[in-house]
């Protein structure tokens, strides 16, 4: 037979445990890193341009976070396809290492606009042993197509030089025959 005091003791214990577990869960689900893309306004350009994507990563948690790797995620908005960064960026991933509580670190990627189109860009941070990645807000930008360098100038040279050569060679041949 359990007396009322024991019942109350068990009830309070379960109550405290529930509050503790739910607090721990809310703490673990709370965003620990905040990533911002700072160069959102300056990203538009022409195919062939090199631009720098700058951003920052801030540790907003109460503890230091180790083993963070950040990378760019680029999506071709027209074709609804992720873009292979092989040609777009020399530095695909940036390893941050450890970031202290409250610390803010800069992020920078030099990217090469390869193809015209509309694109969506986000910065993703992966924390080692964490199941959920941290993602920045998405930045949308447009890459306009590049016109050819100088087709007007190259055509006369491309056609003219072989024609001049044919003329010179014919003249030499004619001279040889008349000699």
């Amino acid at each position, binding site marked *: 037979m359990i007396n009322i005091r024991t019942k109350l003791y068990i009830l309070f214990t379960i109550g405290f445990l529930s509050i503790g577990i739910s607090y721990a869960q809310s703490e673990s689900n709370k965003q620990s890193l905040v990533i911002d893309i700072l160069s959102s306004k300056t990203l538009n350009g022409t*195919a*062939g341009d090199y631009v720098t994507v700058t951003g920052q990563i801030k540790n907003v948690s109460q503890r230091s976070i180790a083993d963070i790797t950040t990378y760019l995620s680029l999506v071709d908005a027209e074709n609804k396809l992720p873009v292979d960064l092989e040609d777009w960026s020399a530095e695909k991933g940036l390893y941050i290492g450890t970031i202290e509580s409250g610390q803010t670190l800069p992020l920078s990627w030099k990217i090469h606009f*390869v*193809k015209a189109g509309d694109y969506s860009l986000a910065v993703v941070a992966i924390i080692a042993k964490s199941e959920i990645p941290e993602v920045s807000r998405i930045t949308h930008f447009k890459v306009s*197509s*590049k016109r*050819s*360098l*100088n*087709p007007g*100038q*190259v*055509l006369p*040279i*491309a*056609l*003219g*030089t*072989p024609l001049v*050569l*044919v003329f010179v*060679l*014919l003249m*030499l*041949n004619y001279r*040889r025959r008349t000699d």
Partner: protein
Amino acid sequence: MYKHIWLKEIKAGLYTWKSTLWLLIASLLFSFTSYLLLTDKELSLLDQTELLWLLSKIIIGVAFLIVTIDASSIITTEFEKETAESLFLAPLRLRDFILGKLLASLTLWFLIFIVATPYILVTSAGTNLAPAFLGYVALLGSLGIVAMVMIIFGISFLYRSAKNTLTTSLVILLAFSVPALFSTNLKNNTFAQTFGKINPINNIFESLDNVLVDYQLSLLNNWQFIYPLLLFCILGLILMVIAAKGFQNKGIISND
């Protein structure tokens, strides 16, 4: 006397329609390449400086190929057509003979350079790289080609056969060109890096990259690429002198 040999070779080599067709084909190749580079949507996305570098490699590559083929037969033909004997019965020094043939081979390089000049100027329009482009292609190309021709002449005196000389020369040219096809990962290999530093064609391409892509225009900034080419010239000269001495000692009739 070398002038006589030189002019004779130029007249024989450049006076007929058929013997100059290669120059027209080289010109068409440059036309096709420069037009493609400047107008193709994908290729024109390249930086203009990278495009200039690509064109410079094509010019140097074509020049090396044509001069190698010509130099492989320019001396051996005298043995195969049995004109060497009568040539050396005349009061002609071997030095003049070699110098005349060397100048004739370099004339081909000069003609290729002249044909390539309009393409160099049109592709570098809008940049201030045209003088550097012309100057470095002339300097590096001349150093590399002089050395290559001297090595081929050395092989010619050793082999006295156009077919064998041509095969060996083309294999040497191919061996020098292979690192240019390596990917970046392969180029990072220690062996590839060492080979790259002594390889004349690689040094020419690296120097042109340094000038056209990285804007390192001074000779001092390119000395690291120029001195291996000078060493290559000295090596070619030594090989040619040794082979020519051997030829003098054995005589014209020796054909082993």
